[in-house]
């Protein structure tokens, strides 16, 4: 891991070896204890999550009466409740539907726009870009009230598409920002050569350009997924029953049925899984993606 010590001895031998991996290891004169910091941090990150998962396998009596670091009466009851009760598992399906819709719409619309921003100067381009970004910065709380009115007027309340469109407010600007960063890294000569070779714009875009920024598209999808998945305020406001996201169902259960800690913990644990899966797929590009493609 990071315990590569770079004393003068090893440096000399590495110069002889010239192996690529070792050259990378020489990058930094990391002290032998470097691993301590990230390890402690990761433990700090995992403790609350562990406690949640731990709780989800306990019975309610064990949760409230005993303080156990491991489930004493290991039970899958809480998960059974969620997977057999439609009002619970429908929440996951609803969330996945609008998140997927939003990801497709956001990235689909952002692709041509990002291309325009990365390749051309046009009337008002910089201000347009800033205006887009300002929507990413605007507090969702500001939009909750008019959104409800707006989507009611269009008869879209309690549909998946309403939430997907509303989340475009912050996801489209973000996708444009990320994709623009990745696209700017592709030399312009590639475009020009393709046009000289007689490619039309759509054919060039789909056949040549999109494969070149495939990682960027993946990262943009990841971020659209992420921010749509974690957002609750707008999603909750725009839905009542048919499209209610899992996160909102959880808040309702908290107030209604006393405290069913076990089921609540199980529902919470299940919301972590989609995120964990998606991170795994983009793990190699995630750092670059957070830097919006431009490092």
């Amino acid at each position, binding site marked *: 891991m990071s315990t590569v010590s770079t004393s003068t001895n090893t440096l000399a031998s590495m110069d002889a070896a010239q192996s690529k991996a070792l050259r990378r290891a020489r990058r930094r004169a990391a002290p032998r204890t470097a691993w301590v910091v990230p390890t402690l941090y990761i433990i700090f990150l995992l403790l609350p999550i562990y406690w949640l998962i731990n709780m989800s396998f306990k019975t309610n009596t064990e949760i409230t009466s005993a303080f156990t670091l491991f489930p004493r009466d290991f039970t899958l009851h809480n998960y059974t409740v969620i997977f057999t009760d439609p009002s619970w598992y429908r929440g996951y399906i609803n969330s996945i539907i609008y998140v997927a819709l939003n990801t497709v719409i956001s990235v689909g619309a952002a692709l041509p726009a990002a291309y325009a921003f990365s390749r051309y100067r046009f*009337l*008002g381009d*910089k*201000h347009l870009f800033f205006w887009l970004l300002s929507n990413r910065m605007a507090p969702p709380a500001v939009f909750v009230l008019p959104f409800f009115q707006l989507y009611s*007027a269009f008869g879209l309340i309690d549909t998946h598409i309403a939430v997907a469109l509303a989340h475009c407010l912050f996801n489209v600007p973000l996708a444009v920002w990320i994709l623009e960063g990745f696209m700017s890294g592709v030399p312009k000569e590639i475009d020009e050569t393709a046009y000289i070779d007689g490619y039309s714009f759509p054919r060039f875009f789909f056949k040549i350009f999109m494969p070149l920024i495939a990682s960027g598209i993946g990262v943009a999808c990841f971020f659209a997924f992420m921010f749509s998945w974690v957002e609750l305020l707008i999603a909750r406001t725009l839905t009542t029953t048919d499209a209610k996201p899992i996160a909102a169902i959880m808040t309702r259960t908290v107030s209604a049925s006393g405290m069913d800690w076990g089921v609540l913990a199980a529902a919470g644990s299940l919301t972590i899984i989609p995120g964990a899966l998606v991170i795994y797929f983009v793990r190699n590009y995630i750092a670059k993606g957070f830097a919006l493609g431009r490092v």
Partner: protein
Amino acid sequence: MNFSWMAWTLPTALFFGTIAALLIGMAVWEYFSPGGNPRHGILRFETTRGDRLFISLLGSGFINLAWLGLIGPQLWWALALSLVYAICVFRFV
């Protein structure tokens, strides 16, 4: 489609009309004299006239709010002050 929920009033319509007119005006200006007249003003970074308009509008918003909070609801003087501010921005920034 019913848009009565938007609750338009004459003053707010005028407000947005003014903003829209300003934007169209800027676009026409930009079309006939492209480049936006970039320069380094007192803020020590490059601004174009679009930036200057934005700074003027944003600043005017705060001037009016401050007037409302500190002095009173008669905003005509605040508007005049905003105009002076906008002229200064276009002249010096």
